């Protein structure tokens, strides 16, 4: 499964590069904004590539701004929350309530759950890697962007339903979602060899 996924990635990139014959010219400006905590850096993609999903960027608010957004919408103090279950490395389950608009990474940190977030949500690492335990729930998530896929490909213990926790934003449809935090150490060997995920 993973092989086909990587092949698809390779082919996808190959296709992009092959356009236009021998040379590939890029005319789009490359811009990168400095990142605040849990804010994604924006990258303008080439118009030809797929998945510049403007919608996703709008949703990635800093926690404080989403709080004020929801307050203005609903007008009530009690923010809407969904139920999320984290299955920890040792198998222990933790049930938490996550406000709509908060990322899974933030939610984990709010609840003292051991989920690393080295780059603090800016798609520059894969340490917040989580596994969605149910295929149906996985399909409810919006497709990952190329940037997320690039980082996911480097994650240890990658599976078919893996996502980055900083990119999963709580929405009503995700109520009851169960996420496993991968026990990476069992996949890690001294010589750096990463075994094929099964």
């Amino acid at each position, binding site marked *: 499964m993973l*092989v086909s996924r*990587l*092949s698809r*990635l*390779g*082919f996808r*990139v*190959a296709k*992009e*590069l*092959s356009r236009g*014959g*021998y*040379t*590939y*010219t*890029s*005319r*789009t*400006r*490359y811009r*990168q904004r*400095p*990142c605040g905590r849990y804010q994604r*850096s924006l*990258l*303008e*993609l*080439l118009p030809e590539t797929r998945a510049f999903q403007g919608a996703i960027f709008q949703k990635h608010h800093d926690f404080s701004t989403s709080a004020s957004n929801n307050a203005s919408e609903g007008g009530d103090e009690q923010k809407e929350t969904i139920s999320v279950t984290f299955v920890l490395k040792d198998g222990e389950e933790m049930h938490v309530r996550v406000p709509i608009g908060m990322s899974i990474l933030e939610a984990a940190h709010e609840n003292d759950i051991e989920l*690393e*977030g*080295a*780059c*603090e949500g*800016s*798609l*520059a*690492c*894969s*340490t917040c890697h989580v596994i969605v335990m149910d295929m149906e729930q996985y399909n409810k998530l919006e497709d990952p962007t*190329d*940037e997320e*896929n*690039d*980082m996911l*490909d*480097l994650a*240890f213990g990658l599976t078919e339903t893996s996502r980055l926790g900083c990119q999963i934003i709580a929405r009503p449809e995700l109520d009851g979602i169960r996420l496993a935090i991968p026990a*990476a*150490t069992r996949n*890690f060997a*001294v*010589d*750096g*060899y*990463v*075994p*094929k995920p099964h």
Partner: protein
Amino acid sequence: MAIFGARKFLSRTFSTLSPEPLRVCIVGSGPAGFYTAEKMLKTHQGSQVDIIDRLPTPYGLVRSGVAPDHPETKNVINQFSRVAQNGRCSFLGNITLGSSVSLAELRELYHVVVLAYGAESDRVLGIPGEDLQGVHSAREFVWWYNGHPDGANLDPDLKSTDTAVILGQGNVAFDVARILLQPTSELATTDIASHALTALEQSSIRKVYLIGRRGPVQAACTAKELREVLGIRDLYIHIKEADLKITPADEDFFGVGGWGCCILGLWLSNERFLESYGNKGYVSAVHLEKTALKGVGPGKQIAMGTGQFEDLACGIVLKSIGYKSVPVDGLPFDNQKGVVPNIKGRVLSDNSGDPTLLENGLYVCGWLKRGPTGIIGTNLYCADETVASVSEDLEQGVLASTTSLPKPGRGGLLQILDDRNIRVVPFSAWEKIDEEEKRLGSLINKPREKLTKWDDLLKAATE
């Protein structure tokens, strides 16, 4: 002396009430060092952890390796500084293993010594002309633009040529290519060292070749880096279409953990560097042989020469073919692999692989343990493994219990260094350097202006 004696007496008498702390010394303050410290502090609630580094500044390659145009990758510094500020942890800078203090001395002072000092040297090509001027290691070039005090004097000549050749196609090669070709207006608002910005503003380099022995599929860069370089304004990427064909053998390669990355590859192997006729001692071209891939096993292809040669004119060459670790006195070392022989982080006494010959209390983590591969996050798992080995050794009595064998730890180390007149830079002193760099940067719209000379760093640390 009386106080020390009393402490020992007290610690023995009250060992069940206030046990001797586990004293840990970690050499190296990059990701491997800090992730090890964090895990150690969490796993051993009584432990005292010291992180030493030969620089007055912490964070290793996060500070001196990550490219200036990748600021988010450096966010992990926030996590590391929280570790350094833990009451049971001390960062001690400006201490060099081997000269300030020996490995043997550290092993006397601490119960556990973890070497996490990475790889500060380079793999060598071993071909004629490698010593010509204009041939640099990419590692030093990265140090140069990142303001590492040992790289500040590199002074690469970017003005007498329009072509640079980079040997290697990993992420470091891409970083270097990007920094050479990125519009300097973009770099001007990053934390790039000012001497590098000035040199790049005057640079005449317009063409960069990335040379690899094998094909696009085997290139070591990651998709993120390639995607990024394709998006840079006014930058044209040339790749031979024929090189992009993916064969069934390549598909095999995907399967065993490599990720495909099609790339600007000339399938060429470097034969030698050609010296300039006009400018003696300077490189003027790279003499290359075209290669072809030959399958030698499932998922394994090697590059073989084809007998076709070509010369690529250039004025600067950057070798980006891999970092290499440096051994120290008293440390078993595998010169071939460039790592310390170890099993799950426990240092072995020699290269025989005999798992019963262990160096008691000595561990490794990071590149020194695994070789110079992986990303920052890779060290998370590496540290987990090493700390697990330490924990196991403590539980099984392989490591003497701290009560039966109390060690001087930090106090002892600081005493030795004081006797040798070595100016230790603690975390609070680094914070002064940090503040000064940020202050200087704010004057010119940069996140920081790095202090790139040893004297300036030490001065800011003590003011």
